[in-house]
């Protein structure tokens, strides 16, 4: 069975680090699922099928974690012994918070725009750019990962979560608009 003591990076045979080769990750994900997935064991005895399901579940989880820059940051911090409740923390960077407040207001106003979808899209691409820039900053922190840098990484992660929440709310607003069309 898959060695559960291996961390997600080792599972995919990738170096532990924030910068990740996504193509290679996707390729190895497929290679692994090809040998472990329950469909490979459709005719196998129950015990093998259970093992295969556990293995495939773990590979899926590892892949989803490493693929997503925010979950990857969380995971890396936990590998560095910081099992923080970052989810429940919030940044104290007032400039950042002010900016967020403005973006929120724009999102709320988007629903009344002549083309609300376009307005939401514009906001979301702005948010995506901000996330990309934070991803760059995050990568720097993990290069040598000193305690100070890990503390900074934690702060960057708090901001990323903020932006992600925004993206989520933008999706919800779009879904709401879709429904009102029907």
């Amino acid at each position, binding site marked *: 069975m*898959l060695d559960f003591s291996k961390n997600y990076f080792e599972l995919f045979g990738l170096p532990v680090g924030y910068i990740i080769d996504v193509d290679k990750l996707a390729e190895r994900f497929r290679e692994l699922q090809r040998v472990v997935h329950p469909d490979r064991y459709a005719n196998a005895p129950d015990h093998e099928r259970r093992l295969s399901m556990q293995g495939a579940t773990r590979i899926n989880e590892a892949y*989803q974690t490493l693929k997503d820059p925010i979950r990857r940051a969380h995971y890396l911090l936990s590998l560095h012994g910081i099992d923080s409740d970052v989810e429940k923390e919030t940044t104290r960077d007032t400039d950042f918070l002010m900016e967020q407040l403005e973006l929120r207001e724009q999102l709320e106003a988007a629903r009344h725009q002549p083309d609300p979808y376009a307005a939401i899209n514009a906001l979301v691409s702005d948010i995506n750019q901000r996330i990309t820039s934070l991803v760059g900053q995050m990568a720097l922190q993990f290069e040598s990962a000193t305690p100070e840098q890990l503390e900074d990484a934690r702060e960057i992660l708090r901001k990323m979560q903020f932006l992600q929440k925004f993206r989520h709310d933008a999706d919800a607003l779009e879904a709401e608009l879709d429904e009102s069309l029907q």
Partner: protein
Amino acid sequence: MALLQLSEPGQSTAPHQHRLAAGIDLGTTNSLVASVRSGRAVTLPDSEGRHLLPSVVRYTGDGVQVGYEARAAAATDPLNTIVSVKRLIGRSVDEIKSLGSRLPYRFVDSGSSVPRIQTVAGAVSPVEVSAEILKALARRAGESLGGELEGVVITVPAYFDDAQRQATKDAARLAGLRVLRLLNEPTAAAVAYGLDSESEGVHAIYDLGGGTFDISILRLNKGVFEVLATGGDSALGGDDFDRVVAEWMMQQAGIRDDADHAMLRRLMREACAAKEALTEAASTGIRLELEDGTHWQGTLTREQFDRLVEPLIRKTLGPCRRALRDAGLGPEEIRDVVMVGGSTRVPLVRELVGGFFRTEPLVEIDPDRVVAIGAAIQADILVGNKPDEEMLLLDVNPLSLGIETMGGLVEKIIPRNTTIPVARAQEFTTFKDGQTAMAIHVLQGERELVSDCRSLARFELRGIPPMVAGAARIQVTFSVDADGLLNVEAREESTGVKASIEVKPSYGLSDSEIEGMLRDSIDHAADDMVARRLREQQVEAQRVIEALQGALAEDGDRLLDAAERQQVEQALARLQAVAGGDDADRIKREIEALEKACEFYVERRMNASVREAMSGRSVEDFE
């Protein structure tokens, strides 16, 4: 005289045992069965050369009719003739009522949450009705392939929820079929297309059937079909097109809403015929027999028809937009759109969908057969006929899964469009001092309020030691298997008190109800049950033996030392000694003993294949 054995160059001369397997498209309006014969997946016709089997079941005083015969009687015997049962499966009586008030059945108040329809042959549940259709298809496949099926892949709409999937699996069990996999219909269609053309990239599958709509976005890469997102509406389809046309006819012909069942059936039939005619023609004449025996005549033009159905088609674009968003893609990133389901023959559907995805829809494979063909390809692989096949399907769960928290809110545990199989855990705590039990309410859906989501199951975790509020740590784990079926487990961490359920949906049949139906059904009289159980164990034993022999031949020398090998072979010999016997319990025990004896070997094999997969890649990386 010995016959000469011919073999293809490069193929093994060892007689390869071909296992019989089939793909079944259990549709709302029509069903099909397909199988791989001489390397090609084909749908199997009945003795009269017809491939489609109308999904219609009629109960009569002396038997059950399925298919054309039943459909022909739908207008004259509406109460005993069940059409579009797929719309009812896995649903509660209340939900069915909200689907449309014009269902011409008499529902029995059975006290059970599973609806039952009163017929001359007694009350039947949608699961039993579906099982009749499956039996008819399996019979057809058995006759056409010359043997009993070892396994089937049954397709379901991607958007089917847990209750509907579970009910479909129950129907298969009732029909005596072994389900290799429940496969999402759009994924099956992609398989049918994807293997013919080596088209790598992102595809959209637009599947508008008789009663359900599905959209799937998937990426095909080196034989792996990875579903990125899926969405849809499990109560929208071609039947609704018929309904709006029928309503238009009622208005035009001055037919009252309380017309009798036979009248309603005639209306639906004429509406459907008009819809089909308008695929080619610009207008079509309608002649309808009224209740008083006179006729109404009218004309429906394509323009008028388009006006009637356009709102319904537009309704499908919302889920398309959402699926793209979930996949993180724009319409321009979709390489092509595959059209599936009879309703995609409607020209306006092709036009609007093509416009939305900005590409000409693909319609090369018969949209009625494409799903069954894909299912057959997958069944052939899963049953073990193609050990070297590289194809793999990675599906997602279509709807978010969560549990009820304080204030009637839903806390999501597994969000929609997560690749399956998946397991996620979340911790909860008690909110009162000394609380010793916790109710767990499992829900499916995207909305925040419990009342807006589908209730899947409720259970209770008892025996929590009394602690102050907030001190208990209750871990709730959701796991979804490769068929998309959910299992929930709750456990108090500090004491290990545990409760788990396989989610038998609030609207599903219990195991004992199914056992009861199996016992009651005429084909499974009492001693039949015993024979059947024995047969099942014998087949299972054979499968286990073959799997192990294959494994030993492949890598037994490499992975086992002499003592280990001897140990495995002894257990194998013990099973072989009883496998052909008539003691089902004994066979079962020996199977379990063998599995236990081989546990370490199985793990070693899986590890070896994982290592191999990884090392193969690393070598390539050095090049």
